[in-house]
């Protein structure tokens, strides 16, 4: 059982602040590090993995700082996002090489068990250069698991995987978490994270925006006011009806640069608004041309979380 301790950590590159005063403790089980691209997830994972010194603050595993201490790797497995992996070797050779680099007494046995765990036995003897992205990802997992580490760090492990491969990897990570390992993986996709992560740490623009289990994160995301763009045959009449109906905090009529106009609605309750709008339109003889959520991108959701 190992705890990852990130204490008041910042990391900057020149004038760019990649990680800004982040403090978090990550215990056994699966934790998802969620955030849009460029949020500082990889930088944080690199610091946890001992490949980058924090500019300020400390990153430690059970109190032991990770930077410049190669002995931490006895208990840490890393699955990098990058693909570089000695392509002339076969999958089995790479995993065996990793077992030997760890100085394991039964390197062959450990390599075989790790390959079995990621279900790559059938293709293990093929050269890595012939592997699909998902197969490479699984062999990377096997190299990280070969020494039975207490901590597993994975950078965007689901990138480029097809749904079946994704399911397999999710099952494997869940099992590893249930075994009491501390599994930390980064992702920019909420659905990936909430399926397997018992706990979620949200990062946005280098800052630690939120943390908790997926229900808390979901609640934070769904409770926020939703913006809709509505185009209709009579925006003015519809605006009055929506406000009178009470399902929106505010409406705004904006002219379109392309000509025409649109109604921007700040809905109080998504479910109520989406039921009320067609009814109100019908009652007032207004035809709806378009109803679209304005800010459903992940970035805007994260941005909302940070502003809180």
């Amino acid at each position: 059982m190992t705890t990852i301790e990130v204490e008041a950590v910042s990391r900057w590159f020149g004038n760019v602040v990649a990680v800004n005063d982040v403090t978090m403790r990550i215990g056994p089980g699966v934790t998802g590090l969620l955030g849009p691209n460029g949020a500082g997830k990889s930088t944080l994972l690199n610091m946890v993995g001992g490949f980058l010194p924090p500019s300020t603050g400390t990153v430690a595993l059970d109190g032991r700082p990770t930077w410049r201490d190669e002995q931490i790797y006895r208990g840490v497995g890393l699955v990098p996002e990058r693909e570089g992996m000695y392509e002339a070797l076969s999958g089995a050779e790479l995993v065996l090489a990793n077992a030997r680099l760890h100085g394991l007494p039964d390197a062959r046995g450990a390599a075989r068990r790790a390959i079995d765990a990621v279900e790559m036995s059938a293709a293990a003897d093929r050269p890595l250069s012939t592997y699909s992205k998902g197969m490479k990802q699984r062999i990377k997992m096997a190299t990280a698991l070969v020494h039975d580490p207490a901590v597993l760090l994975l950078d965007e492990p689901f990138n480029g995987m097809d749904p079946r491969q994704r399911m397999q990897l999710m099952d494997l990570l869940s099992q590893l978490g249930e075994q009491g390992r501390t599994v930390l993986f980064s992702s920019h996709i909420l659905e990936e994270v909430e399926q397997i992560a018992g706990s979620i740490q949200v990062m946005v623009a280098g800052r630690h925006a939120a943390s908790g289990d997926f229900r808390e994160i979901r609640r934070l995301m769904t409770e926020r006011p939703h913006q809709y763009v509505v185009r209709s045959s009579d925006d003015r009449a519809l605006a009055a009806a929506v406000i009178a109906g009470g399902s929106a905090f505010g409406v705004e009529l904006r002219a379109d640069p392309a000509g025409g106009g649109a109604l921007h609605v700040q809905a109080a309750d998504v479910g109520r608004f989406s039921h009320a709008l067609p009814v109100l339109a019908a009652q007032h003889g207004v035809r709806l041309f378009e109803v679209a959520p304005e800010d459903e991108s992940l970035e805007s959701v994260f941005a909302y979380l940070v502003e809180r």
Partner: protein
Amino acid sequence: MGPGAVIARLTVSGLLGRRRAAVLVVLPLVLLVLAGVFRAVGGQDLRTAVLLLSTLGLGTVVPLLCVVVGTGVVGPEIEDGSILYLLSKPLRRSLIVLSKLAVAVATSWALLVPSVLVAGVLLVGTAQRLAVAYALAAAVAAVAYCALFLLLAVLTRNAVVIGLLYALIWETTIAGVVPGARVLSVRQWAYAVAEAVAGDEAVRQGVDSDVGLTTSIVLLALVTGLASTYAVRRLRALRLGGQE
């Protein structure tokens, strides 16, 4: 198989892949072909042999081949990120650097020593000790060059370009012409070894170093030791994570 041997094996698999292997074979071949041509045209001539082995052999083929090998044992792994499989292990960084240096030195010896030896024999036959002298000089120069270029690859992503510029501008040109610069040239230190082995006749024909043998050996050892030590230090603090 111990960790050192595994590192060496992974290094070899990266080094001998693709275009690099072709470049490695071409350089010694150029030396051999030219030696063959000179032999066919001019017969065995000591002065020609010294000129060819000094300028083309020690002055050009040795540093260029060592640029390719020395940077090739670590540069591509840093470039594609696969070095992470070595760095994420509880291994002393000195073991990683020394294993890679051993591969670089063994590879450059395997390619340089026989080709310089054969070129020397083609040019002057076996009566003179010239072939052995230059082969030995190439061997000691290769150790220092490999250590220097390995360090360069740990320090910068542009190691090959900088290494080539260093080899061509400093070792081949400036250190061959400017007297003061010769003292700080791996090529001159290697000459001192060749000079000591070659015998009086070869020395009269121009196998002549500006630096004494003892000084040269000390400097070669010092450069190799310092470059390797610094490479270990830098590898310990190698930052894989850049900006996102």
